[in-house]
């Protein structure tokens, strides 16, 4: 389950390995005698209601949220292709998750890198199974924990699409997703979120998935765009976003859904979830304003795309910090992420000649790194963070840096393998003529718009 390491970290890292109230590994049906259909009485209704809706909100982030955010950035002729890729990989991730992904990440036994295959096909889970939260004696139905975590796997797979869109084949993305989930996502999720997981045991702070989701997706997309190569005409030919309106809708829906993503990672409807929600507001607002400020200061006009980009940068950065920060720590981390991502995307990237179509690495990767490292500081009580008086930010920073390092290396190597196999099996990218005509017609035989 989500690590609420903050409390334990504050209490002394030595006790960590033993204490986490992380009972999910053995979610014994909490009332095995109750053969009747109603959920067991220890299931908290308020938390269950909260987690169901949080799960629904993450779905809103994927389709239509993320699909529109990316789709708006594409050219008209590739719109349907982008939408189909996000939809397709997310659906595939869901099926794989209930088949063996949940078991690999959160199975009952396991080592530092992976759980087991005891829960393949969700064996043994019923409507009465409970999953522990961070409070003793409080459980939520295991089915909703499975669903909530499933949406995380699905959106992370969807995020990768942004790096290679407008040239990667649909079939390439599907094959890549299946391999990549298995060798990259499930292990990293286990390492970070499961008791006994490598990074979990280090005591790294990652409230809602800065490493598992964002750094992971950013790095994997970067590897993909290097392996598949640039779009024809890039960077000479103009490739402006075909609809900033769609990108704005996507931004709004991502923001809205992110409250479920970050708030739901608390697993309970309580004060910490409320704090995570408030932080998710202000870090994002800060990201929007500071990206536009960055544009202004560097002699450009503040732009809508800048505001949207800043929003995502702020959201990404506050993800590991959501419950591990006070509101002003969140504002700072949002501002920092926006400025660093702005610098990377508008100044460094053109020099590197990267064609990361939707800047998945530039915003999710870089923003995730800023957020993960920054969380070591937002915890400090001096800036309103929830850390104890003797909280040691530097010690924590080292742990965070190690976690980031492991995530980057694992994702880079694993993604390279996955991209390589996917390219071998499916060809990787469409032919030049098909790319020129647009992937909508050539890959899907349809147009996104027929005005």
């Amino acid at each position, binding site marked *: 389950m989500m690590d609420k390491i903050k409390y334990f970290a504050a209490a002394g890292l030595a006790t960590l390995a033993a204490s986490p109230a992380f009972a999910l590994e053995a979610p014994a049906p909490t009332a095995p005698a109750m053969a009747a259909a109603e959920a067991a009485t220890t299931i908290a209704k308020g938390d269950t209601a909260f987690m169901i809706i949080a799960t629904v909100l993450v779905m809103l982030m994927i389709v239509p949220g993320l699909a529109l955010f990316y789709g708006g950035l594409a050219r008209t002729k590739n719109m349907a292709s982008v939408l189909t890729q996000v939809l397709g990989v997310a659906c595939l991730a869901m099926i794989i998750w209930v088949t063996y992904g949940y078991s690999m990440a959160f199975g009952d036994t396991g080592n530092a890198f992976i759980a087991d295959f005891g829960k393949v096909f969700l064996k043994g889970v019923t409507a009465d199974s409970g999953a522990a939260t961070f409070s003793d004696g409080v459980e939520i139905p295991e089915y909703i924990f499975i669903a909530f975590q499933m949406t995380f796997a699905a959106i992370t797979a969807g995020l990768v699409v942004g790096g290679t869109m407008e040239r990667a084949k649909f079939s390439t993305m599907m094959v890549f997703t299946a391999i990549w989930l298995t060798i990259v996502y499930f292990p990293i999720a286990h390492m970070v979120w499961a008791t006994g997981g490598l990074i979990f045991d280090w005591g790294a702070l990652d409230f809602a998935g800065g490493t598992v989701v964002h750094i992971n997706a950013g790095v994997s997309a970067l590897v993909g765009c290097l392996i598949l190569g640039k779009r024809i005409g890039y960077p000479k030919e*103009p*490739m*402006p976003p075909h609809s900033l309106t769609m990108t704005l809708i996507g931004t709004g829906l991502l923001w809205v859904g992110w409250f479920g993503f970050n708030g739901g990672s608390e697993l309970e409807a309580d004060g910490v979830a409320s704090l995570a929600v408030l932080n998710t507001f202000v870090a994002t607002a800060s990201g929007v304003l500071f990206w536009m400020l960055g*544009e202004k200061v560097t002699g*450009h006009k503040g732009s809508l795309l800048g505001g949207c*980009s800043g929003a995502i940068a702020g959201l990404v950065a506050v993800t590991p910090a959501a419950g591990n920060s006070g509101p002003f720590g969140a504002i700072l981390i949002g501002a920092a992420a926006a400025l660093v991502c702005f610098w990377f995307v*508008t100044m460094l990237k053109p020099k590197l000649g990267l064609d990361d179509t939707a800047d998945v690495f530039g915003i999710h990767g870089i923003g995730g790194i800023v957020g993960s490292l920054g969380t070591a500081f937002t915890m400090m009580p001096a800036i309103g963070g929830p850390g104890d008086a003797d909280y040691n930010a530097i010690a924590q920073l080292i742990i965070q840096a190690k976690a980031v390092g492991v995530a980057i290396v694992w994702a880079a190597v694993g993604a390279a393998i996955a991209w390589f196999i996917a390219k071998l099996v499916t060809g990787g990218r469409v032919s030049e003529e098909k790319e020129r005509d647009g992937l909508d017609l050539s890959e899907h035989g349809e147009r996104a718009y027929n005005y």
Partner: protein
Amino acid sequence: MKLIIAIVKPFKLDEVVEALTGVGVQGLTVTEAKGFGRQKGHTEVYRGAEYSTSFVPKVRIETVVDDAVAPKAVEAISAAAKTDAIGDGKIFTIDVSSALRIRTGETDDTAL
């Protein structure tokens, strides 16, 4: 008969049409166009990628008129479309050898 093609600024369309009807023109056809000329286009920046387009939005008006009406029509368009700013546009005149109104089968001058 003459075909008059006028390329003008979009917000002048209504005034030009009014002016043309004023000199007796009864029909015309308009298409949206992008113009390239002395007037410079805009610079757009998307996440650091700068695109300077050399095109500006224009409307392209074409109308076929009687030889007699042609000079008056050119005059009318010119007066209505003028803002004295760069990019006001151009008017070209071309000979037309025949015209036909589909509905009635009328030809040439009576077809306009």
